[in-house]
């Protein structure tokens, strides 16, 4: 048997296993971490034109914990993440199937306004992308468009406490009027986190938030994520297994558009069930 056929066999096996698992989790109101479930995805598929990028993903995401998605490049982690706050709507030719529910409410319900959804599910991107505005205006952007502040004092408070929560306030408090693009990479990423927090989201999605940062900035962000966990449901995509192990409580392993294995982070890293997961963790795939 060739390697390729091997992989395909494994994949099929993984998929069968997945369905069993999802049946199991569906019966439990809370998952292995013993936490209430915030987001549930069932049989989520994504097509980019003719190309299928996700093949039926089903997963539960626990409240006030960090869930990490790992897997080799191109396996569909970002694609799945972008399904959760419907960012795929902005991509021409992207078609999403299956259901995703936030607190039991269907995210793809035509009656649900995507504006409202994205106010509840914030997002932080791979590369820090502050707007070419001042630090203050960057953070104030979300509250302004959503009309969350009744007056300037409210807005000031939102901006300051968001910057605080993002651990950036002390560093920038004297230069709130300066351009956000003038900050260092790590500061920019924290600014983007503050920008997301300022809208008061319940869930925060982070797509490789540290991949453009140096180790020190990465450590700061990881610490921050650990703090935010107390108040927010966080989903993070990462290429670093160490990072997943450090910051997340739950881990899901994706491969070639399939969810191969998911579970408590410790279990996944110490005792993976699936051979592909083993291979990936040992550095043999990807």
């Amino acid at each position, binding site marked *: 048997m060739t390697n390729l056929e091997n992989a395909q066999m494994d994949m099929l096996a993984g998929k069968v296993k997945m369905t069993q698992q999802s049946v199991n989790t569906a019966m439990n109101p809370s998952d292995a971490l013993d936490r209430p479930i915030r987001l549930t995805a069932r049989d989520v598929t994504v097509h980019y034109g003719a190309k299928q990028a996700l093949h039926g993903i089903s997963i539960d995401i626990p409240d006030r914990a960090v869930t990490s998605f790992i897997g080799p490049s191109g396996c569909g982690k970002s694609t799945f993440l972008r399904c959760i706050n419907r960012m795929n709507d902005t991509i021409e030719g992207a078609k999403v199937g299956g259901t995703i529910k936030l607190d039991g409410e269907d995210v793809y319900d035509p009656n649900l306004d995507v504006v409202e959804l994205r106010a509840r599910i914030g997002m932080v991107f791979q590369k820090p992308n502050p707007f070419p505005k001042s630090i203050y205006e960057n953070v104030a952007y979300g509250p302004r*468009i959503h009309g969350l502040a009744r007056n300037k004092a409210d807005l000031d408070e939102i901006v300051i406490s968001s910057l605080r929560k993002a651990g950036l306030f002390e560093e920038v408090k004297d230069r709130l009027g300066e351009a956000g693009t003038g900050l260092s990479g790590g500061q920019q990423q924290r600014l983007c986190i503050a920008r997301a927090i300022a809208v008061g989201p319940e869930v925060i999605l982070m797509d490789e938030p540290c991949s453009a940062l140096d180790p020190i900035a990465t450590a700061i962000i990881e610490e921050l994520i650990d703090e935010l966990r107390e108040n927010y449901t966080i989903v993070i995509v990462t290429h670093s297994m160490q990072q997943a192990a450090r910051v997340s409580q739950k881990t899901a392993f994706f491969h070639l558009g399939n969810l191969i294995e998911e579970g408590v982070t410790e279990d996944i890293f110490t005792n993976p069930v699936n051979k592909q997961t083993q291979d990936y963790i040992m550095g043999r795939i990807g």
Partner: protein
Amino acid sequence: MRSGSPEQNYHRFYSARNDVEIAVNALLMFCSAVAILTTVGIVLSLVFEAIRFFSFINPADFFFGTVWSPKFSSTTTNDHGQYGLLPLLTGTLWVATIASLVAVPIGLMTAIYLSQYAPRNVRAVIKPIIEILAGIPTIVYGFFALVTVGPFLKGAGALVGLDISATSALTAGLVMGVMIIPFISSLSDDILNQVPLAMRDGSYGLGATQSETIRKVLLPSALPGIVGAFLLAVSRAIGETMIVVLAAGNSPVLRGTPLEPISTITVSIVNQLTGDTDFTGPQSLVAFALGLTLFIMTLLLNIAALYIVRRFREQYE
């Protein structure tokens, strides 16, 4: 072991080849010098003839004069008439301003719609149609302004009790605005497409609607580039000749309103230089002083525009 002939052949072959290389190189270099020579020719001829003009007329009277009335019969007296630039300059600015007021909103909104909202196939059809506007000869616009737009504006003005002249800064500016719509829309389109997608995603991710994203993130990010496009379009409007020759009314008087006939720098160049060629009096030489003014104005605008656009591109590289 030394048999000279193959080596010599080799040598001869390659030195002949080298000669060809050198000759080709020289020829090509000469050709690219033509562009430089053109610029040098423009600058020298404008400066040289303008200096001759300023030997008749005091530069201060030219640049700050408020009356334009050249006298054509210069043989009998020494009175050459007055050559004040200001009436022409204000006329030029009136037309350019009105043209911008027409072209900037239409061009910019067109670019926004085509680059952000329109499906690909709609864009593929509409973009070239709008670009036709830039390819139509200006004499055609001039004629259209003169026989159709002017009388229409006059009639429309009469309806609301406004006294609008059929040939006026308004007529010429309006039609010129149409002409420069594609300059603004194509350049803005390019520039909007250069704003990184990450910027857009950041805004959508926070729950902004598309128009909020465009107005509050995309446009501010693209602003320098759009300003560059605007400057290029203004430079085009200032140097445009045939529309104003036909439709601006040829009345070199300082005006406070665009509803009356005016004249522009380009119109006066045409008026002063057609028919006459011996370039002896200030009557024809003034065309070069006007040309020099025009050249410097458009050059500054272009340099500023190219500089701003280049800075904008570097910002996102």
